[in-house]
């Protein structure tokens, strides 16, 4: 039986709106003197980055790990979420005694630029108009997100990160970090990701965006001013996307053909099946915590991502001479970022002579496996970070 909890729309919506400009997080603000140079040619200034940190930075500032979040993630890796009240999204991997050990490392996670949890994005107030940016916000890319993170790391006085860790869109940022700032990344753990978004994935994103934009309440992206909310469109986008995060086997194991709170089909279009009810809940709870325009911008950023294209089509060229230690992980049942994508990364890293390890984890949990309790994934993450820590001269505890 799926436990569907009611959401309180009005309350969470106003909280989220507040989070966009005044987040329950630490804040790095960059003025006109420090613009963010965007790939689209715009200098974004002023802008702000909302971030969380866990653990302590050691004396020589060498134990920092940057976590990069996925499409609909945020900076709340290991604390209660200020809007949903739920636990942090990566408490399986991050925490005391976990592979990303907060007793040992200084862990940083920032909301990506273009997001909606406190870093500047389409739901933030445009200082020029005093209204939310909406579609006036410039289109951002994965390299833009990483450039903003690098400015945050500078702001924190950290020269070199011990590790950059992330899955899915977070994994794309990990790879981009290694390409853009090889000397600043000692080790890189890239999970369930790719160096370029596939045609199929772009297609799914387009489906999601069209669903949002087809909702009359979207109002050309100006829904804040009209007091509307493209709830249905964004919800459909989330439902479709959510299916891509799972696998056929996982859906069947979780729901089968079971009916929701009824003995017989109702011969209607009500949510008869548990899987329908589950998806509807995924959709409706998502719209309360996420901004529709942010969803458009961040899916676009993933679509544009193609490391090879930025290096004359040669992926290996992008990593040539990289001093970074890489670990790439994929999951057998992930069809959104299948193992073949990870192997492409590995082949390029091998061809460029970089130090890379790779493991494919057997699981039926699909793409979402990186967020779930998958012991083999924790084992390799732990082994990789542990050995990298010794190579980096990090002692077992922060002194």
């Amino acid at each position, binding site marked *: 039986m799926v436990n569907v909890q009611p959401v309180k729309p009005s309350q969470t919506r106003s909280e989220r709106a507040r989070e966009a400009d005044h987040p329950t997080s630490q804040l790095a603000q960059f003025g006109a003197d420090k613009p963010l140079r965007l790939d689209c040619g715009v200098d974004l200034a002023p802008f702000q980055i909302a971030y969380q940190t866990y653990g302590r930075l050691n004396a020589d500032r060498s134990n920092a790990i940057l976590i990069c979040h996925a499409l609909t993630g945020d900076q709340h890796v290991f604390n209660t979420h200020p809007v949903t009240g739920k636990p942090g999204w990566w408490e399986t991997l991050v925490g005391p005694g976990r592979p990303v050990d907060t007793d040992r490392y200084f862990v940083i996670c920032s909301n990506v630029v273009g997001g909606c949890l406190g870093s500047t994005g389409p739901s933030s107030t445009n200082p020029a108009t005093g209204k939310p940016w909406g579609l006036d916000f410039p289109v951002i890319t994965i390299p833009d997100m990483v450039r903003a993170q690098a400015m945050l790391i500078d702001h924190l006085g950290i020269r070199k990160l011990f590790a950059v860790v992330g899955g899915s869109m977070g994994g794309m940022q990990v790879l981009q970090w290694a390409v853009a700032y090889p000397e600043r990344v000692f080790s890189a753990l890239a999970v369930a990701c790719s160096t370029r978004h596939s045609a199929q994935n772009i297609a799914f994103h387009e489906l999601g965006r069209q669903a949002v934009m087809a909702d009359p309440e979207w109002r050309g992206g100006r829904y804040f001013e009209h007091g509307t909310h493209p709830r249905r469109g964004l919800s459909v986008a989330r439902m479709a996307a959510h299916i891509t995060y799972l696998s056929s086997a996982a859906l069947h194991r979780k729901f089968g053909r079971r009916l929701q709170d009824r003995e017989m089909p109702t011969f209607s279009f009500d949510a008869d099946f548990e899987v329908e009810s589950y998806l509807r809940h995924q959709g409706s709870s998502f719209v309360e915590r996420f901004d529709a325009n942010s969803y458009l911008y961040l899916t676009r950023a993933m679509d544009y991502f193609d490391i090879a294209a930025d290096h004359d089509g040669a992926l*290996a060229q992008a990593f040539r001479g990289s001093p970074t*230690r*890489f*670990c*790439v992980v994929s999951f057998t049942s992930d069809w959104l970022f299948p193992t073949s994508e990870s*192997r492409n990364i*590995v*082949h390029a890293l*091998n*061809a460029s*002579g970089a*130090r*890379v*390890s*790779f*493991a*494919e*984890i*057997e699981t039926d949990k699909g793409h979402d496996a990186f967020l779930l309790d998958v012991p*083999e994934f924790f*084992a*390799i993450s732990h*082994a*990789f970070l*542990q*050995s*990298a820590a*010794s*190579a980096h001269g990090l002692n077992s505890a922060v002194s």
Partner: protein
Amino acid sequence: MSVQEGFGLTAHPLRIEGARGDHLLVAQMVEPGSRVLDVGCGEGDLLQLLESRGVDGRGIELSREGVNACVAKGLAVVQGDADTDLVNYPDDAFDYVILSQTLQATRQPRVVLENLLRIGQRAIVSFPNFGHWKMRLQLLVKGQMPRTDNLPATWYDTPNIHFCTIKDFVQLCDEINVKMERAVALDPGGRPLRLNAPWWFWNMFGEQGVFLLSRRD
């Protein structure tokens, strides 16, 4: 076919506490400071031995447990398969490519061997010798597929689908124009047989063969 002079190893074999005999032999063939790919590196014992001698090592291993063990040792190892993944490595990426006790388990030993010498300047290949007298005797006397202490699997569940003898391997090397720089036959305890013996002697009494190969340009 005859024995080539100077095929054996130097008079001072490498000895390191706890290391396997065949690993030491391989380690001795690799020049310090070189780049090495170990195909089928298991839990990384050989790679670790090589890295302790100043070698820049990489590995390929089929089992995830093996990859995990290697990663925990700080080694750079990718999950993969000699048959399918060697094609993705560029030419001359390594000084040496090692294939230890794996050739007989590949689907296409000839293609694998050609790939080893495309990726690496040199290849070091070791394999069990199916021409060993114990094998011959079991087949002759019992009329059954041989099983030994080092190869205990039955014919129906062995991963070793392409057994060969030392003589067969030498023939393949000739066919694909590979130069044998060094060859050593090991006894069942992993110790090198006496040097400068004729091929038939190695083929009869060597339990495994270890070859250092290069391209004949």
